[in-house]
């Protein structure tokens, strides 16, 4: 029974990684850049919820909505100010380094405003959870909510991309920006929309992450951000179902190895798996072969 508990916890952590990884992978798919500041958007979202909920005497619903709106604005603004001018720069490294710069900027702004001490975050999920099999299987409310939300997000994204004009434009622009422009698609606006969605997802992921692991610091987003990046690469970067699978695999492996092997080694195991997968399948689990242009 305890194995089942750990598995469900892993699934829950994996769902959070998956939601973050979705943002990474969508942005990579269309802008062909790794937004290394993506993890810090999570932290920003958490601090917003923390402050707003504090001011509203614990009403976290308003906090979540404000966080989603502000993170969306942050994502779009970052893209416009920091990344767009570098699109078409001679080296793709320029935008990558800028993303790292944005990451440090956000962390240090948080440090200035909130200080370095760890804040205790009160869960946005008030539900106690389920007690099954006569109390032998305890599942926390936040665990269940996290899994359900990630499934809803995945389905919503798939519907958006396959059924809506904007989603199809996103798909087209991620494959060939020039051809997309010839169709009348405003590529810049499509990229901005992708950043908006990714950043909104980061805010949601932040709310869930800090509810499950309630300590908040300016570096809260850094490690989950890197793990989600690993998840996106593991699943095949650019692939939405891939990000989901990569996230879940990563979360389950992390929790199980923490439980059964060693909590110190769990990160090493997680990254070890990445190395092995990339050796066997360089494009990730669901990644497509990159066709070299002749």
């Amino acid at each position, binding site marked *: 029974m305890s194995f089942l508990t750990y598995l469900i916890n892993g699934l829950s952590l994996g769902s959070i990684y998956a939601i973050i990884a979705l943002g990474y992978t969508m942005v990579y798919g269309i802008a062909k850049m790794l937004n290394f500041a993506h993890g810090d958007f999570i932290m920003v979202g958490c601090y917003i919820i923390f402050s707003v909920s504090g001011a509203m005497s614990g009403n976290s619903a308003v906090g979540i909505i404000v966080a989603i709106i502000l993170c969306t604005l942050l994502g779009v603004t970052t893209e416009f100010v920091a990344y767009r001018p570098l699109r078409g720069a001679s080296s793709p490294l320029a935008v990558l380094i800028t993303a790292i710069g944005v990451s440090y900027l956000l962390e240090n702004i948080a440090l200035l405003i909130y200080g370095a001490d760890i804040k205790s975050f009160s869960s946005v999920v008030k539900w106690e959870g389920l007690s099954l099999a006569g109390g032998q299987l305890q599942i926390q409310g936040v665990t269940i909510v996290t899994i359900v939300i990630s499934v809803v997000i995945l389905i919503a994204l798939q519907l958006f991309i396959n059924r809506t004009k904007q989603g199809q434009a996103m798909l087209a622009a991620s494959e060939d920006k020039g*051809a997309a422009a010839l169709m009348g698609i405003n*590529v810049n606006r499509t990229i901005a929309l992708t950043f908006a969605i990714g950043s909104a997802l980061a805010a949601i992921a932040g709310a869930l992450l800090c509810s499950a692991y309630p300590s908040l610091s300016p570096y809260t987003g850094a490690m989950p951000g890197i793990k989600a990046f690993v998840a996106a690469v593991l699943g095949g970067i650019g692939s939405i179902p891939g990000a989901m699978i990569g996230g879940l695999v990563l979360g389950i492996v992390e929790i199980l190895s923490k439980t059964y092997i060693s909590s110190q080694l769990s990160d090493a195991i997680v990254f070890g798996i990445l190395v092995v997968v990339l050796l066997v399948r360089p494009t990730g689990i669901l990644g497509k072969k990159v066709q070299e242009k002749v």
Partner: protein
Amino acid sequence: MAILEVSNLSVYYGVIQALKGISFHVDRGEIVALIGANGAGKTTTLHTLSGLISADGGKINYKGHDLTKTPSHNIVTLGMAQVPEGRRVFSEMTVLQNLKMGAYTRNDKNEMEETLSVIYKRFPRLEERKNQLAGTLSGGEQQMLAMGRALMSHPDLILMDEPSMGLSPIFVNEIFDIIQAVNRDGVTVLLVEQNARKALSIANRAYVLETGKISKEGDAKELLNDEAIRKAYLGE
């Protein structure tokens, strides 16, 4: 009456001048061919017309709009579509999704369905494969898809960049027949081709582009019999 009038157009890639002030025009209802060797500036010309490359000098007048100042995504709404070189279909999307992308700027759902059925009639193969991923089509079928996709926007002027490139002779003939049929339906065509003989045989007029300059222009049939053209471009 000219639907497209290009005057003194110049484009630089860094310090290299790819187009050295070219001028040409396309009249409504015509097929105009732009022929020339590799690197003469044919694709650059079309990309500049569609706004994928920005002009460094000169004017592009399309139905009274100056295209040098129009962002590329707004040009298709003005009634100009391009079938790009190398087809550039969206390989991860189905044939039908590709066609719908071609109608991205249109909001008239019923008329769009009508255009789609006209295109299916012209390219029955596309209808047979409408749910297949575009990347799995053969080269000739992809060319048809690229043409169908451009026609979905219901253009007045269609720019075609090397439609016969890499196709088997049977497909080449089929593609050129389709270009003529499209033109008969009232779409003006600006055709860029390396297959000069084929292009001149279906065009009304033609321009010869040589290292960024127009070296010759005139009636297509006359150019087909021009001694210098025959030597340089028809391999005789």
